[in-house]
């Protein structure tokens, strides 16, 4: 049995509590509060204590999906990227860069957000980048 506790940060609210994810054989089974984290000092709220519960939920999206005849159907990453690259190029050429918009995410990491906004500004050429900070 492979058991480890990985120190990380809760994904729910803006507090940013330190949590230890207990992992058994590649599955997150429990959440522990981290005592040395200055935000939560060993405490957690009910959402935090249960933050591991959605990770392995069966409804997780596991493959790219492409709409076909009104239905989303599983496809390979290759096919999904081909479709996206083709459509983005077509729309950019036909309507211009500012016809494309991006919603980045207050749930994702700084690194995700940095690369996403860079993609919008550099690859598409638009500043149409926002997220739900206002919501």
């Amino acid at each position: 049995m492979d058991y480890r506790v990985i120190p990380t940060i809760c994904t729910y609210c803006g507090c940013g509590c330190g949590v230890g994810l207990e992992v058994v054989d590649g599955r997150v089974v429990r959440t522990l509060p981290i005592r040395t984290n200055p935000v939560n000092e060993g405490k957690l709220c009910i959402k935090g204590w249960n933050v591991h519960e959605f990770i392995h939920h069966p409804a997780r999206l596991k493959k790219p999906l492409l709409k076909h005849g009104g239905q989303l159907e599983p496809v390979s990453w290759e096919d999904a990227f081909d479709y996206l690259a083709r459509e983005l190029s077509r729309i950019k050429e036909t309507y211009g860069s500012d016809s494309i918009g991006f919603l980045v995410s207050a749930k994702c990491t700084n690194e995700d957000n940095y690369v996403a906004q860079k993609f919008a500004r550099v690859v598409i050429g638009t500043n149409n980048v926002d997220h739900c900070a206002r919501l």
Partner: protein
Amino acid sequence: MAGLAAAFGSGAMTNSFKEIEDTECIFVIGSNTTVAHPLVATRIYKAKAKGAKLIVVDPRKIHLASFADIYVQHRLGTDVALINGIMHVIYKEGWYNKKFIDERTENFEALVEVIDKYPPSLASRITGVAEEDIIKIARYYATSETSSILYCMGVTQHATGVDNVKSLANLAMLCGHVGRPSTGVNPLRGQNNVQGACDMGGLPNVYPGYQAVNVPSNREKFEKAWGVTLSPNVGLTVVEMTNAALEGKLKALIIMGENPLVSDPDVHHVEEALRALELLAVIDIFPTPTTDLAHVVLPGVSFAEKDGTFTNSERRVQRVRKAIEPIGEARVEWAIFQDLATRLGYHMSYSSSEDVFKELTALTPSYAGISYERLDKSPEGLIWPCPTPDHPGTPILHRGQFARGKGLFHAVEYRGPAEVPDDEYPFWLTTGRVYVHYHTGTMTRRSFHLVRELNEPYVEISPEDALRLGIENGEMVRLESRRGYIITKAFVTDSVKEGLLFMPFHFAEAAANRLTASTALDPIAKIPELKVCAVKLSKLEPQTTVAA
């Protein structure tokens, strides 16, 4: 954010969480702290135990209200009138901090001119708060050695959101309660990394580090770093993108980990907009009402499957560590954009999240001194601004001087909410969170223990209104606004006053945002007025079919 940035030069929390414990007077307005930020609420309790005074201002009798030294229920959307009234008293009584105002601020005369017009009698008429309570709040806040303001979406999600925040900044500067430990104006950010997403330039007007896109020297800096020519035009905000899609100007939308079909105002309108797009691509970890409408859906990973950093509400940058491999074929979001960029002819070759972090810190002055190495060494993370590798971080902003130099007072007049009750739609409706759920419920509603606590939508109705309309606790009711209607369960409670209704917005099956309006935007921040709309309420007749 725009309001604080205009007054102080930075839109973030001015002080850190821990300092709240030692605050003499805590002023909580528009924040249901125990529900939305539980670990901030613990600091309020600790401060109370040390003898702090607690002021709570909220239209709903939230949990904190029962611990407050003074609690007032003001009418929805009357924050500016209330704060102007409080400042009127502070000025007239001479409780303001003249030295601070002289040395650290500008435009004080304009403030005095405005607050002069808001004696407690007028403020009381507008807000419904008793005159003696306004005077008491003024005295507690102004005469304590350290006073701290905590606020959240109850202040910002209004058509006057920026005005509300400017008023709070005025109040803090008037009393010199900023730039010292245990003081400040502190917006509690709703999402784990909303601060970081803003810091990283996830906004239409700025590059990473709040460097404006329309300032030529900033543009040149990023053009040089990224090796391309960049657009000088400020982009569209979320709600503007929705409108542009309906007008046929926006043709494609790429959404990463957001669910606007539940979170945004007037969801009918959002749905129409998303359907009008030629391309809707969504990256998410679960199917949502938004992915249902997408042409292509890409599986992203949860926080447990990635390395990276989150920046919390107090500007603390902390390490996120990968605990397990991605589920199925899911991929880390930044890597998805990297692959797509390369396909579209712009080569990106980050080998790790640390690689990305090194690039972004080189371009973001407030993050320049932060590295994975430093974050891994300390369990505390680092609070930006952290400009150099030996800088300890900056828990307290605006010490000595404001980020913009002098603090700027704004003369803010009260403007009522965009939509107010009338004969046809006689109730005020406001929205918020419950303790076990989070935002649109994509994650919490897939969590066994949280679902067991509570898993259905409801509307809070005052006992007086329930009696008058013959509505029993637990009965189904119909709520209708000018945008649409929903059917949900009645929860009769005295946490709302007569004439006011409250709904949590987590539940797609009776989405509160079917009722809210997207037309009333704050003119500067473009924040929709999610916290106020007018509705009618009726008992559901037995023969009506449930089709919300």
